[in-house]
């Protein structure tokens, strides 16, 4: 009796190892912030919306969460605990890699731009969600989903600065964006989004800063959500 009992865990772990022994492949997602046709660089690079303006970027940070791969309208792979802080000042953060079953076929990638409302009310969390990452509002609880800061001669603000801290998790200003992109079972996926298009729709002159969850933040977030595209 004693002996059989002692064997039990070993037998169990043997079987579960068998089940887990599958072949995997590495799938990579590479987020590429663009300005028109060029990959966006922070700080020294100067960009133009039109002939007579100039734009420089200091900060670009955003959350990508809830990454899923779909096929035939059903998920085939879901990343557990999926929260990633993307920071343009550290290109490593823009590249994600996933270990998926080698026979997995997918036709669609889904993810969220920002942090869902449940996570927003769950208290202190570590890793990419740690409040020291500069993506948490202090005077009113909630994550900043997307942060873009820089300067432009178009802005009438102090030092010509613009700041977009977009977020908000409660109705009617829930700014979380769900993004679905059709694709063709690629191994290495580049996901681009063009900040030139984004800024063309922004009133840099009169509204160079949106810093709290409100209607403006919601509108800008909706526009941003439409800019993500896969380039094959």
């Amino acid at each position, binding site marked *: *009796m*004693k002996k059989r*009992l002692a064997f039990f865990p070993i037998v169990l772990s043997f079987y579960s190892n068998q089940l887990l022994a599958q072949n995997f492949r590495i799938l990579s997602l590479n987020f590429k912030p663009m300005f028109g046709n060029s990959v966006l660089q922070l700080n020294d690079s100067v960009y133009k919306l039109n002939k007579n303006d100039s734009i420089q970027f200091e900060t670009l940070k955003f959350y990508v969460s809830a990454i899923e791969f779909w096929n035939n309208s059903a998920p085939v792979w879901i990343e557990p605990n999926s929260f990633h802080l993307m920071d343009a000042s550290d290109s490593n953060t823009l590249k994600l890699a996933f270990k998926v079953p080698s026979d997995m076929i997918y036709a669609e990638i889904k993810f969220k731009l920002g942090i869902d409302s449940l996570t*927003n*009310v*769950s*208290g*202190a*969390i*570590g890793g990419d969600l*740690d*409040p*020291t*990452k*500069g993506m*948490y509002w*202090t*005077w*009113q*609880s*909630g994550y900043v989903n997307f942060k873009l800061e820089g300067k432009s001669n178009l802005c009438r603000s102090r030092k010509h600065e613009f700041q977009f801290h977009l977020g908000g998790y*409660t109705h009617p*200003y829930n700014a979380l964006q769900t993004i679905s992109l059709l694709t063709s079972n690629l191994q290495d996926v580049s996901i681009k989004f063009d900040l030139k298009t984004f800024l063309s729709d922004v009133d840099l002159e009169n509204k160079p800063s949106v810093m709290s969850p*409100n209607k403006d933040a919601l509108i800008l977030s909706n526009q941003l959500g439409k800019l993500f595209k896969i380039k094959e």
Partner: protein
Amino acid sequence: MNWRRNVSVCLLFICVSAFVASKDGLFNIPLNWPKPNYNFSKNPLTKDKIDLGRALFYDPILSQNNTISCSSCHSQFTSFAHVDHALSHGIYDRIGTRNAPVLINLAWNKTFMWDGAINHLDMQALAPISHPDEMGESIEHVIYKLNQSKIYHHLFFKAFGDSIASGEHLLKAISQFMLTLVSANSKYDSIKQKKSVLTLKENNGYQLFKKNCSSCHTEPLFTNQKFENNGLPVDLELKDFGRMKVTQNPIDSLKFKVPTLRNIEFSYPYMHDGRFKNLNAVLDHYVRGIVKSKTLALQLEQPIVLSANEKVDLISFLLTLSDKKFLFNPEFGYPKNLLISLPKD
């Protein structure tokens, strides 16, 4: 047959230790109280984490020039409200715009701050740390300073098995200390446990309280946790519209969180801006100061009528909510012993 005995001894041990774990005295739900709102499974209390949180609560290292600690505005002998200040005083003596509330029974709170701007106890500390008129710091720099300190290397390691401080661990530890601040040892509580009785006057006050006040200041926590407009005239200088700032919805204009009335004897001055110096002035407000407006609470549409004697009785009931054991509980005070036993920086 030996294994059977071993297993049953084992089982017995597991049962006993599970029993002990919930009865370890770190947090007990007082008799007949509702379940706490705080999710302890995400931040299970331990003695070492509470100790760390307590050290942080009393340490001015959390402020920009190392002069202001949480306890500067929340002192134990006023039930962790701000001593005798209508508007709280922070760094460089800058004055804030609101009165510091008591810090008790926070495990039951659904939201924090007078307008509910903070959604979780863990996130509360971020607000004063980074407020330019309170502690004027940034959480990033606080973490940097803590990581230079031998004392905190030691305390973080004991608490989390990691001597490097992180935002998550800092906030969770401060929460742990605040969660232990349970006040449930007033005369009112001993009456509910049938260990004591109200005097005639107190009992008369209790009946008046149940009639006029308890729809908002609901027992046993003495708050229904809702946001209400209790008819205070707007302070034209502060122009504080309360909950509306958070929801941006005009139906929330002038609504503030219903505060607990436990330890109300010690937490003067009263209201979100500390406009009333004593309980008499508060009752005068409810009897003849109510300002009508679109968002005024329905219960206060009709005037509350209280005679001079009834006011005295009502106040004598409010004083039965005082918990002196809490105010003088050495476990909530400055952690002298903890700090002497540690390596110096």
